[in-house]
C-alpha cells in the first residue's frame, strides 16, 4: 500500500455508528446500514478494523499493530495510513481532530 496523505498521529479514529460487521471465514464484512453497501476486509484489514472497536489515535493504532504483526514501524505506519484513508473514503472510519 502507498500513502499519499499522512494522517496526524494524534488524530482520533473511530467507527461511525451506522455500520455493522460480521466475520465470515476469517474476514470481516462491514455493512453500511444507511446505504446498504457492504465491504469485505482481508484478514489484516479485519484486525485493524477490530482494533478500532474503541476509538484510538493514529499513533495508538500503529503501536498496537506493530506489536501484533512484528513489522517495521515506518512501513506499518505507511500501510495503516493508506488503509485508514481508504476506509475513510468509504465512510467506514471517522478521522477526527486531534485527540489531545
Amino acid at each position, binding site marked *: 500500500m502507498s500513502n499519499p496523505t499522512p494522517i496526524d498521529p494524534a488524530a482520533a479514529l473511530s467507527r461511525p455508528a451506522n455500520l455493522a460487521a*460480521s466475520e*465470515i*471465514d476469517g474476514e470481516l464484512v462491514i455493512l453500511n446500514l444507511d446505504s*446498504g453497501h457492504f465491504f469485505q476486509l482481508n484478514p489484516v484489514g479485519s484486525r485493524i478494523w477490530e482494533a478500532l472497536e474503541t476509538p484510538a489515535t493514529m499513533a495508538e493504532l500503529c503501536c498496537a499493530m506493530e506489536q501484533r504483526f512484528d513489522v517495521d514501524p515506518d512501513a506499518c505506519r505507511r500501510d495503516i495510513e493508506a488503509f485508514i484513508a481508504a476506509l475513510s473514503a468509504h465512510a467506514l472510519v471517522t478521522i477526527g481532530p486531534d485527540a489531545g
Partner: protein
Amino acid sequence: MSAIGGIIDWSNGVDPAALSSMIAAAPGFTGSNGAAWQDGQAGLIRVALATTPEAVAEVQPWRDAGSGMVICFDGRVDNREEVQAWTGRTALPVDAPDCAIVLAAWQRLGEQLLDRLAGDYAFAIWDAAERRLTCVRSPVGWRPLLWAARRDGIAFATEPAMLIDGAGLTPTIDEGAIAEYLAARFGCATDTLWRGIQRLAPGHLLTADVHGIRTCRWLEGPFEDWSRRSDDDHVARFTELFDQALIASSRSTGPVAAHLSGGLDSSSIVCRSQMLARAGAIVRAPISLSVRFPGEECDEGPWIAAVEERCAIRSQMITPPPYDWAAAADWSARTRHLPLRPNTAGTIMSSCDWLQANGLSVLLTGEGGDDWLAGSFAHFPDQVRAGRILTWLREGMAAGSGVTAMYRLRWTLSSGLGPLVSARRRARLLQPVDDTQGIPDWVAPDWARQTNLAERWRDISPPPGLAMLAQRHRYGVYALAQRHVNIDNILSFAAGRGVEFRHPFHDFRLTRFVMGAAGGMLRRHGTTKYLLREAMRGTLPEEVRQRRDKARIVQPIYDAVTARLRERPIHRLSPVKFGWLDGGRLVAIEAEHAAWRAQGAHGKPPRSSYAAVWNAVAIDLWLEQAARIS
C-alpha cells in the same frame, strides 16, 4: 403406484419370457393385472394398480395406432382438460385414460409438454418410427424409475427386482452408494445400491436409441418470483393451489383415506379436505387414519382429538404391529429393497392393511410440508442483492429469540452476506450434501478413501442456474436423493398391498409457486411454515395451527434395532465385519441412545446420529437378503 418396465435390444430383439418375468417380479402382481407389448427390438410392460376412474378400463401398454408410438405410464395427470386441449385432437373421449392423453400430447408437444404437465408420474414412450425410447420422471419423483444399460440396449423398471429377477441383470453392489447411505448422507440422485442400475433422477428424462443412452434435466425453471408480493396475495394463491392439489389428489376409484398424525401438515390436509367436501368441491371427505403411541413422548392423541372435534369426525385408530425382522428379511429378499425403517414401518403396514381390508387404494399424507414450507434464510442474500436492506435486517433481527441484539445482528449479516462473499458458504447453501463436515467418525477412514466418499459428495450435481439463491436452495427439495433410499421401499411395499400414497404438498403447481414465494412468508419471526399457518386460519383448530413442536417418533426404531442387535450384535454386522464401519463407535452411539430410550426418550436426544446404527443394521440385512452377500 403401478409398475412399468421394458427392454430394448437392438441386436437380438426382446425375449417375451423376460417381459413375463419382469411382470411376475413386480409388486402387486396378482396374476391377471400385468400386460406386455412387444415388437421386435422393443418390449414394454405394465402391472396395473388402477387408482383413478379413467384407469380402471385402460389398456396398457397403450399404442397409438396412427403414429405407432407406445406408452407405459404410472401415475396421474392432474390437468387433464388442459393437456387434452393442447393436443388439438378431438378423437380422445373426455374420460380417456391419462396414458392416452399424455401420449397424444407428447406427439404434439414433445419435451415442451413436461413443464406444463401437472401430476405425479413416470412413463416411457417407444417411438417405433424413430426407434427411440424416452423415459420421463415427474419433478418430485414419487414414481421411481430405474434403468440399466445392457450389451445391446437398455432395460428399465419401477423396481430393482424387476430388473434383477425379471430382466435377468446380475449387478454387483455399489460400495460408493452404500458408503453414502452408511454415512447417513445419501446425496447421489442417480446411483442405487446396485452397480449398473441407475436411477432416473426426478425432473429428468432419458433417451435411448441406436446412438446410445442420454439423460438430461428437463426441470430448469424459471419460477415466478413472488418476493415483492403482499402477504395477502401469498395466502390467497397458496390457498387456491392447496385446494387444487387436494381436489386433484382425491380423484380416485373410491373413497380416499388421509393420514392424520395431529401435526400441522396432515391436520391441514384433513381439515381442508373436510371443508372442500362440505363445499362440494370433492366428492367425499377422506377417511382419516391415526396411529397412537399411548404413554410415549411421541403420542399425539390430544392434537388428533382437536382435529376430530373441529371437523366433527372420528379418526380411525390403527395399531402399528411390532417390527417383524423375519418378515422384513423375507420382503427384502423378494423385492431387493432395503427394509422399511421401523419408525414409519408400523404406520405404513397398518395403514395399508386397513385400506386393503376396507377396499380403499389411496392414502393422502402430509409428506412434503416440512420440505417445502418450513422455510429457511436462504433468501437473505437475494434481499441484499436486490437492495432490500431494511426488509432483510428487519427479518433477520426478528428471527431469533433469547439472544442479544448484537448476536442477532451479526448472525443476520453472516446469513445475508456470507453466501455472497464466501464461495464456501455459497456451496454449503446450495450443495445437497454438506461435505465440509468431513467423513463421519463411524465410517472407517480407509474404506471412505477406497469408495471416494468425499469426492462423491463434492461431485453431486448442483441445482440449475436459477437467478435467485433461495430458489436454487429450494430446488434441492425436488432433487432430494435421500428421499429415494427412505421412500422407494415404502412405495414398493404399498404397491404390493394395492395401495398408493399421494402427497398434496408435493403437487407440481403448488411447489412451482413455493419455489418463488417470498422467503419471509415461509419462515417469519423464527416461525416455520408461516404461510401454511396463515392460510389455515379458520380451518385448523388454533392449538394445532399454532403448535411449534413436532412429535419425534423414535420408540419403534429403538425397540426394533435393540431386538435385532440381541440376535446379531454390532460386531457381527456385515458392514463392521467387512471393515467399512467402526464397530466400537457404533456400540457407543447405540449405548447413548439406548440409555436415553430407557429414561423415556424425554427432552433432547443424544447428539450422536442414530441413523448410523439403523443404517448399519439395514445394510446388513440388505446385503444378506437382497444382495445375498454375508
